[in-house]
Every structure is written in structure tokens, then in C-alpha cells.
């Protein structure tokens, strides 16, 4: 008799508080019903991928066969990762939530890469006239925000590193999704977030030092 895979044995030993559905998934995916369970899990992943792509795809302008193709790719890649990492499941969440995370993140990655098949504008276009609009400033009230926005532009130009400036121009000025930039730069979301996080702190310090931010923060707080 072939010994049960480690995950199946571990199910009852290590995860005594695991919910019955998770226990059943682990048992099925590591036992003799593995093939049918894998197919069932793939069906779940495909449905989630389709729904996620529909939810996010409108913004990414993905529909029809292209959406379905990306959904299949996301579900298949997620399934491969899940099966490869099955023994890493610690039972800290429901099994399905752990597994669905893989397909949700696959959708994000694939949408990021897909962005560059039809970019809306050059990611490095420095059209600073767009900056007020990116934050939703009312052109009719330009006299109130002009000085601050100009100071922000100068701070971007002179106080950010070239890398931070590239990210600011792409993500803030040109509206390129963060995941598209991770694909473009061959990095990960955390690295981009960290660089932008530091950039935001620098920009804030610069505006505060010029007395341009606190005044408006006070005004904001005083609003009803």
C-alpha cells in the first residue's frame, strides 16, 4: 500500500482545528481522488479568475476571448503553484482562501503585463499640466492650488531620486497601474511601494518646509 502523502497525514495530526471543508480538500488533493479534486479546484479557480478579470478588466479594456484566455492562464498557473506548495499550507486560514489567493494574485500579475500590450500613453511622458487633474483639483480654483502644485512639481524634479521620479511620473502623472510598472521594471510590488512611500515622505517634507501643506490641512480639518 502506498503511504498517504505528507499533507494528508498531516491534516488530522497537525490541524486538529481545521474546518471540515479544508480537511476534505487536503484529503482529496493528496489521496486517490486527487485527479478529480484537482479538476474541481481548477473549475473554482477559473470561475474566480473570470470574475476577477470582469471586475478589473473594464478598466484594463479586456473582454471576450482575450478575457477568457487570461482567465485560463491565471487558473492554470495558480493551480500549478497550489499543488507545488500544498505542503506549505499551515492551516492558518481556510484551505480555499489560501488557494484562491494564488489565482487572485495571478490575475493581478497578468493584468500588469497585459497593460503593455495596449498602453494608453507613454509611461514617461512628463505632461505636468495633468498633475492638478490627477488629484482632482478644480481648474476654477486654480489660484488656491497653483503654488502648491508647482512646488510639488519642483520637489519631484529636484528632491526625488531618478528611480522615484520615474515611478512618480508613470504612476501618479500618467496613471500607469503599479502592477504594470512591476512587470515593466522586472521588480515586485513591494519594491515599488517602498520607493514611492519614501518619495511621498520627501515630497510632504518639502511642502511642509515651504509652509504650503499645513495651512491647507488646517483648512481641511475645519471643513464641516
Amino acid at each position, binding site marked *: 500500500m502506498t503511504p498517504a502523502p505528507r499533507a494528508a497525514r498531516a491534516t488530522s495530526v497537525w490541524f486538529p482545528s481545521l474546518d471540515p471543508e479544508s480537511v476534505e480538500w487536503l484529503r482529496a488533493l493528496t489521496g486517490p481522488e486527487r485527479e478529480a479534486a484537482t479538476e474541481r479546484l481548477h473549475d473554482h479557480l477559473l470561475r474566480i479568475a473570470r470574475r476577477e478579470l470582469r471586475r478589473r478588466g473594464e478598466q484594463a479594456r479586456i473582454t471576450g476571448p482575450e478575457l477568457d484566455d487570461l482567465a485560463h492562464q491565471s487558473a492554470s498557473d495558480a493551480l500549478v503553484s497550489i499543488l507545488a506548495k500544498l505542503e506549505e499550507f499551515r492551516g*492558518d486560514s481556510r484551505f480555499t482562501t489560501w488557494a484562491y489567493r494564488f489565482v487572485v494574485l495571478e490575475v493581478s500579475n497578468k493584468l500588469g503585463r497585459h497593460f503593455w500590450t495596449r498602453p494608453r500613453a507613454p509611461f514617461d511622458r512628463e505632461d505636468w499640466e495633468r498633475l492638478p487633474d490627477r488629484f482632482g483639483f478644480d481648474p476654477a480654483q486654480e489660484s488656491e492650488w497653483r503654488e502648491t502644485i508647482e512646488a510639488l512639481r519642483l520637489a519631484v524634479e529636484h528632491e526625488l531620486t531618478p528611480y522615484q521620479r520615474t515611478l512618480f511620473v508613470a504612476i501618479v502623472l500618467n496613471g500607469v497601474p503599479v502592477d504594470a510598472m512591476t512587470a515593466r521594471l522586472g521588480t515586485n510590488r513591494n519594491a515599488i511601494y517602498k520607493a514611492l512611500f519614501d518619495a511621498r515622505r520627501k515630497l510632504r517634507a518639502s511642502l511642509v518646509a515651504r509652509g504650503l501643506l499645513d495651512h491647507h490641512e488646517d483648512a481641511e480639518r475645519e471643513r464641516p
Partner: protein
Amino acid sequence: MSGWSALHGFLTTDPDDAGCGRTLELLEIYADLVIANAGPEVRYPDIAAHLRACDPCADDLAGLVAAARDNGS
């Protein structure tokens, strides 16, 4: 949201922000706590701070919560 609110939101950083790495690492645990209405922001305030500032991670969480609630159906 006024331009000022958006600008302040962009420039405001939380020192407790967990970052994308830790957030994505614990996303399924956080999602289960959301679904169970078990106060994820109390147990993981650093992740809650990150989710307030990072749209892509918040979007992933929204997708995962929806998927887990419906259990893939």
C-alpha cells in the same frame, strides 16, 4: 474627494504601514478575519494601515474576500 484631500491622502504615510510583502503574505488570513467579522484591523493594524494606502493590495483583498465568500461558485 477634493483635490486637497487627494493630495493629503497621497502625501500621508503611516510609519506602521506593513508594506506589500507582509500584506500579501498574510492576505488569506486577513481575508478570513474580514469574512468572519473578527476585527482584522485590530489583530493586524500594520496591514490595515497598508490597505488604506495601497490600492493594488486593497483590490487583491477585495477580490479574495469576494471569492472566499462565494467559495469559488
